[in-house]
């Protein structure tokens, strides 16, 4: 077992950068999204019941597909890397 962190110590952490992620309000909504074939094929994995990992580079397609499905996703940060 890893040792308990000492208070105030620098915490060891691994960074995962540029992660394409969709968070839903609840698991049922995530299921609803995964039931759409076009969305499901862009999802690389389900991190938690409400967190879907999107295939790298496919986030624009996911946002477009969500909008087509009548959702109004909140996109946090740039959808494309800055030029």
């Amino acid at each position: 077992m890893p040792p308990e962190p000492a208070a105030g110590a620098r915490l060891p952490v691994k960074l995962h950068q540029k992660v394409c992620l969709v968070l839903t309000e609840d698991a049922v909504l995530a299921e609803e999204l995964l039931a759409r074939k076009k969305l499901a094929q862009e999802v690389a994995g389900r991190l938690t019941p409400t967190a879907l990992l999107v295939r790298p580079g496919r986030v624009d397609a996911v946002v477009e597909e969500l909008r087509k499905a009548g959702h109004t996703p909140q996109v946090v940060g740039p959808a494309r890397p800055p030029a």
Partner: protein
Amino acid sequence: MPTPETTATVDPWAERARAALTRYDEDIVRLVAGRLVKPRGHWPVDDLVERSLAALRNAPGIDRRLKELPPACRKLLALLGVLRRPDAAVGPLLSLLAALGHTEGVQPLLTLFEEGLLFPDLPEGAVPLRAFEGWLGQAAAAGVPLHVFTLPLVAERARGTDLGLPAPPTVEASFTATAREADGLDWPVRMAVVWQQVAAAPLRRTQNHDFFKRDLARLRGDPLLAGPGAEALAELPDTGPLAVLLAHASGLLREQEGELTAADFPPAWNDGLFPTLTCVWTALPEAKGWQPVRGWVGPGDGEDPYPAAGLLCLLLLARLPETAWARPADLEAWVREHHPFWAGRSLPEDEANAWAAPWLLGLAYPLKIVQATTDPDAEGGWLVRLSPYGRWLLAGGPPPAAPPAFRQTLLVQPNYEVIAYRQGLTPSLLASLSHVAAWKSAGAACMLELNAEQVYRGLELGQTLESVMRLLNQHGMRQVPDAVADGLRTWSNKRERIVVYPRALLLEFASAAELEEAASRGLIGVRLTDRLALVSDESQMQYRHFRLTGNRDYAAPPERCLDVDDDGLTLAVDAGRADLLLETELARLTEPLPAGDDGRRRYRLTQATLRKAVSNGFPLPVLDEWFVKRSGEPLSPAARLLATATQQAAPRITRAVVVEVADEATADGLVQWPVTGALIERRLGPTALLVADENVGPLRERMDELGLPADGG
């Protein structure tokens, strides 16, 4: 009154001038600095550049320098002052000078370059400029459009220089006629509509900056853009493409890789009507490819004379007394006679080709630059003169008074329609409404609609439910109806239901305890799992509280990061190489185990997890491939057994006896001799033979007969 040139800091233009000076050859820098600062010694070039820039910030010094210039040079700078933008294309500028009677060609430009009051727009990385004539010649030969610029202060000080224009013939207006003046909102409304449409669907441009056919048809056919305008006194062709040009040139749209997209509304839109109109005024010279009679003709190679011709008409009006009227045709006649584009050409001058009236009444009038009244001598004709705003713009008149403010000008109806009465509309309100409500009509009373799509777009652009409600209530004649407020709330809440992070930063902690510790210190935002946290804004990440044990790009291909124990079922994770997808994969295939003594996370394949994975779209070949990708080895036999046991043929359990002989040759003989061979089931090894239970007796008898009696059994 604030204008784009006075509200903006001088620095960008000074920086541009500094960049131009540093691209001059040293001799040229010394020549220019010699005129601007008259150095007494041999100063370093850098000093000369800085002192030259300082001289260009000194208003009395600039006034002295202007007085010493030849008239053509003063007029050229005055034109930049009138245009309210310190940069211009060389071609139209020289045409304007020629129309003012100066046919010296590029000489005024060369003089101003040497005087340090004008700069050529040199590309970055260009070879040092050795001669101004060379720049003009090379660029002209290459067909590159040339641009020049000065500093805003120089243009401002030169504004007001007598351009030597004559006063056009005046016409007596009817005693009963009243002067008409537009509210100035037609074009800001059109540009706001363009902004909204481009925000929804970017416009693509061809390589030569033309519109694609489909886009052009859309712009031409759009009733909001192509209508005559509520206030225009003359109908203009192709107002849609013109609105796009003006929106682009005034900063509402930006072009990136051949695509026009919506930018932020320029700050002038928050400063009031006149700063906004001045922002549009500065954009007029960029309206190339559009003509007042033919409409959109596309960006050709030749000179487009109409922006300059329109300016000349207005400059002629500036020569009139405040109350005097002129006929557009008289202004046009003067321009046709003096502007080099028409001079010497035999163009039909019939009424159908008259461009001044549509330009003045369809563009300058709605922009509040001119006033109009009916022409007593021509039915349907108009007379024009500069408005107070036009006189401030072009004739050195006092700043016009800001229009009266009517704060409550919106009527939000229960059917989600918003009526905006023009009396209280301001550019700032136009901009705010364009963010959240879709334009439906732009007549005397504008109509917009609050709908999910547009509200959502507004929220994407930084609006909030509170800011939308505040906008509608502050400017509404009545409180926002409950049904509309509920609708806005629903749309806003709906947006919160799905959040997409295109480039999120995730922190993976070694243990849940460490994540808890980070949470208690307020170092993480959204908690995803017991070991993963999301940082939505990387700029807020406080790295000093963390020790990085790894850094992984989500887009990088997966690596081998699993070690398989001897049992073939227990998997140990190499945390340094693991990626996020591994987490999701392990969750589908394994069950977690307590971490081992080495601290590595461990998972176990079980028959239940494997069977579930196989039935949930992880068939054996995919499983095999995944094992190779993640561990470097195919699926272990144990795991394969667990995964496929139920699909195998049923094993047969029988009783049998193993006969061990002394050597391999004896075994060979027993197998080959038909009498004993028929009694042997299978050879298990070099000296071991498998014999069915019922054949043990007969085999023993045959071996006794051979003199090879067996022990045991």
